[in-house]
């Protein structure tokens, strides 16, 4: 009965075999009369088919590939944003520049030559933000002293640049404020004279600090040559404040300006006097020479003493 081709391992059901005789007994009924009319009636009343999907159905492989591509693109965008905002540098993850990557791919030496200025340019940038000088252990050799002085000079240069930038910014903002308020603003000649006076005062202050530092450095060099170890007081030029005084200074320094003045007023006269004398002594130790008379006051207020970092 079966005319289909034989399959492997099990031949077709041979006509006349017992199985074929049994299977041939499975008859089927005919379709009922009127079946076609029923189907036609159903077709007439059948709801119209749904519109086709807007997007054609895609294979599973294509969908997975699409998701992978979206994931890779998202990760790349996040990584690029992290590298651009400096998050990776904060996490100590080195981010090579595009030129460095290209040079490593092509093997050209241009990137290594061009990478050096990038590193050099980063040093002044980091020097502009003063890093705290941490002296671990005694300094008792000329090499250690030279290294210490080099680091001190580096930080001082950065601080001086920052002070000048702050002064410049304050002058500009004050002029802008006066212009916005409709007040008289200094002419260019007046502004130049003002800047000259401020620069003179700043230079005088720096000269005094340099002189004081030079004196301390001579003393430190003599001490190191004699084989003695330097102390923190030798380097900073300050006597270490008592823990109580340090705590009071810190408490005052951390307060907002308005509350700082209020806290100062609320001190007893004895406390105020003691604190002022201690501050005066620290300043005198840092600047042993009496300063020259200050120039005329400037419209731009100088930085507050507690806001300016110590010279060394």
């Amino acid at each position, binding site marked *: 009965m079966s005319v289909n081709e034989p*399959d492997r391992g099990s031949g077709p*059901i041979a006509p006349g075999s*017992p199985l074929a005789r049994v299977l041939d007994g*499975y008859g*089927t009924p005919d379709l009922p009369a009127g*079946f076609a009319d029923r*189907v036609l009636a159903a077709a007439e009343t059948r709801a119209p088919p749904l519109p086709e999907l807007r997007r054609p159905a895609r294979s599973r492989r294509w969908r997975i590939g699409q998701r992978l591509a979206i994931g890779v693109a998202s990760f790349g965008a996040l990584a690029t944003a992290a590298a651009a905002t400096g998050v990776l540098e904060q996490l100590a993850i080195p981010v090579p520049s595009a030129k460095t990557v290209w040079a490593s791919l092509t093997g050209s030496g241009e990137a290594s030559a061009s990478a050096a200025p990038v590193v050099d340019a980063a040093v002044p940038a980091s020097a502009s933000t003063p890093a705290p000088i941490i002296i671990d252990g005694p300094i008792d050799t000329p090499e250690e002293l030279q290294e210490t002085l080099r680091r001190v000079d580096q930080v001082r240069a950065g601080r001086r640049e920052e002070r000048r930038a702050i002064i410049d910014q304050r002058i500009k903002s004050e002029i802008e404020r006066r212009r916005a308020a409709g007040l008289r603003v200094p002419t260019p000649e007046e502004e130049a004279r003002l800047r000259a006076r401020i620069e003179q005062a700043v230079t005088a202050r720096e000269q005094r600090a340099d002189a004081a530092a030079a004196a301390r450095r001579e003393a430190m060099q003599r001490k190191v040559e004699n084989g003695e170890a330097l102390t923190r007081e030798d380097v900073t030029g300050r006597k270490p404040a008592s823990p109580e005084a340090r705590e009071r200074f810190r408490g005052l320094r951390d307060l907002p300006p308005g509350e700082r003045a209020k806290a100062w007023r609320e001190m007893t006269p004895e406390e105020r006097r003691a604190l002022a004398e201690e501050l005066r002594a620290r300043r005198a130790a840092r600047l042993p020479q009496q300063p020259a008379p200050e120039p005329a006051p400037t419209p731009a207020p100088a930085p507050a003493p507690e806001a300016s970092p110590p010279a060394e």
Partner: protein
Amino acid sequence: MHTATEPAPAVRSAPPPGDDAAWAARLAARDPAALREMIARHGTALHRVAYRMTGDAHEAEDIVQEAMLRLWDNAPAIAAKHPVGSQAAARLRLGGWLQRVATNLAIDRLRRARRLSGGEVPEEEDGAPLADEVIEAGERDNLARALVLALPERQRAAIVLTYYEELPNAEAAKAMDMNIKAFESLLHRARTALRQALTAQGDAP
């Protein structure tokens, strides 16, 4: 009643090449006469397949009706893919398309019934005597029915399409959306299961 002892051609009459594309175009134009002609051409063959798959005449009628209505719904898309006179039109076989739809509908209904019943589909949904009683009664047609309906639905479809409908393996595989190797393996398992079931009844094939 049509039985397998009679010739059971897959289609009523072999249409000329490209004829199905013309019928699809008429169906797409919503010609009821075209649908009536399709029912006349393919309805009986589809009903045989559906009935032997499900063992239920009413279920088989529903399947044929649903297959025809799907042809009615999909006629515009089919006609668009196989415009009259094109090479694609010469390849169009509405009988094979309907065969595939009806087979899948029957398999889906059997699976749904098994899922709802929580086990095997009852072999005698129309209240006919159970297989054991049939075997004891020695009624040959009911024995064949019991043997076929005892097969898993895909093996049942393979036997129905190749033995009863006499489709070549390639066409039967196409109707079941399978590759030829997998279909031959399925057919081998179906024949083996039939022979083992018949042997278990004490009548060696």
